[in-house]
């Protein structure tokens, strides 16, 4: 019998970002067949450290980098595979991203996209990982200074934690979905250090309303909120490239002012819902259950002007 693929929707743009592998995200995000990988899996550029810990390696070390086109524009892109070691930064993983950022200075693409999906630094190669985080942040500053927007896309299983959260803070623009979580210390880390009274990591609703995409968008930590499809991320990435601010003193001072004002306004809140209430959300408890359309409508109604700091 002939085999004929059957899928609910064959369009890559309709697939769930959260569910997709890093490779599938890249394939659907960029123009069809346009992605060219640098240091592909066939080169077997794998972690030199993991065998010492008797741990399995991945051909791409959980980081896929290359060039492609986004609606015709030349872009560079990096994607983390959140299912391999939680998307954590190791030596090869980090070096591939640093290398891509440096290549941007030579290639001058329309933008550089980072598809974050990471728990932070890989414990087994922590020194190399930490170094990579620092190098990436420095490289992003250079790329942005060269006038190339760096857009972070966050909506994967591992979220964007640890050093990934720091790197996200240096991007020109961030796009986040509901499942995307952005923070530095993860829920378990906070609970371990400060106790379950401070933060109960098993309370998943608390985790999401404190670190999840809706809160980050409402608080201005992310610049665009999207539904969980690859197509939605593609559209938002295109929009945000055009909106990326200049990387200059004025932008940084505006961002500093925004953060100071935010701290003054919300610093005494004990829960994200209090913040939302002060932002003018009538029924903060309803926010987590909202569909993307309802949340978009809420954003449009809020008195806050969209900031363009960063």
């Amino acid at each position, binding site marked *: 019998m002939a*085999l004929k693929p059957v899928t609910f929707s064959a369009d890559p743009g309709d697939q769930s970002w959260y569910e997709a*592998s890093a*490779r599938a995200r890249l394939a659907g995000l960029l123009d069809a067949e346009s992605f060219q990988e640098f240091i*592909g*899996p*066939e080169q*077997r550029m794998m972690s030199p450290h993991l*065998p010492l810990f*008797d*741990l*399995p*390696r*991945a*051909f791409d070390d959980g980081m896929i980098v290359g060039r492609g086109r986004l609606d015709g524009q030349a872009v560079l892109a990096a994607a983390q*595979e959140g*299912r*391999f070691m939680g998307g954590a930064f190791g030596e090869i993983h980090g070096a591939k991203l640093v290398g891509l950022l440096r290549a941007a200075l030579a290639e001058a693409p329309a933008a550089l996209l980072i598809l974050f999906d990471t728990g932070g630094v890989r414990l087994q190669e922590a020194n190399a990982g930490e170094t990579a985080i620092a190098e990436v942040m420095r490289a992003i500053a250079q790329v942005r200074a060269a006038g190339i927007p760096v857009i972070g896309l966050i909506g994967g299983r591992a979220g964007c934690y640890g050093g990934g959260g720091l790197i996200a803070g240096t991007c020109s623009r961030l796009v986040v979905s509901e499942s995307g979580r952005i923070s530095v210390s993860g829920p378990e880390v906070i609970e371990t250090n400060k106790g379950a009274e401070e933060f109960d990591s098993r309370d998943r609703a608390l985790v999401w309303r404190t670190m999840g995409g809706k809160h980050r968008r409402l608080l201005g930590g992310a610049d665009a909120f999207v539904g969980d499809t690859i197509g939605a991320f593609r559209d938002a990435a295109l929009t945000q490239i055009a909106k990326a601010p200049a990387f200059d003193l004025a932008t940084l001072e505006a961002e500093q002012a925004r953060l100071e004002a935010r701290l003054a306004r919300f610093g005494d809140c004990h829960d994200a819902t209090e913040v939302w209430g002060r932002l003018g959300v009538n029924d903060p408890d309803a926010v987590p259950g909202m569909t993307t359309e309802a949340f978009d409508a809420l954003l449009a109604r809020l008195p806050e002007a969209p900031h363009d700091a960063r």
Partner: protein
Amino acid sequence: MEKLNFRHSTTQALPGTRRQAIVGVVASGNLEVLLERSLPPDEFTVEIDTAIDGFGDVWEAVVADFVDRRQPGGLRITINDGGARPDTVALRLAQGARLMEAM
């Protein structure tokens, strides 16, 4: 970690022209399979790096069935395994072969 190698001769080459494909992700209970069309059409090899020791005979059986059912001549397969169950391995191999068969 255990390294395993298997070599088979096949009567047919795997159809299709795709040079390379990768399927799956290394995670607990999961694996990645890299397929490269780089051998003579009547040869087939598999190299496996697995997180769980002592299942060589099961791997051998899974690979033998795959050769039986698919006749993957010309393929060099390399596997990074995070401790997948045999049925997951068989499914990934079948998926990989289907990707390589695409024109």
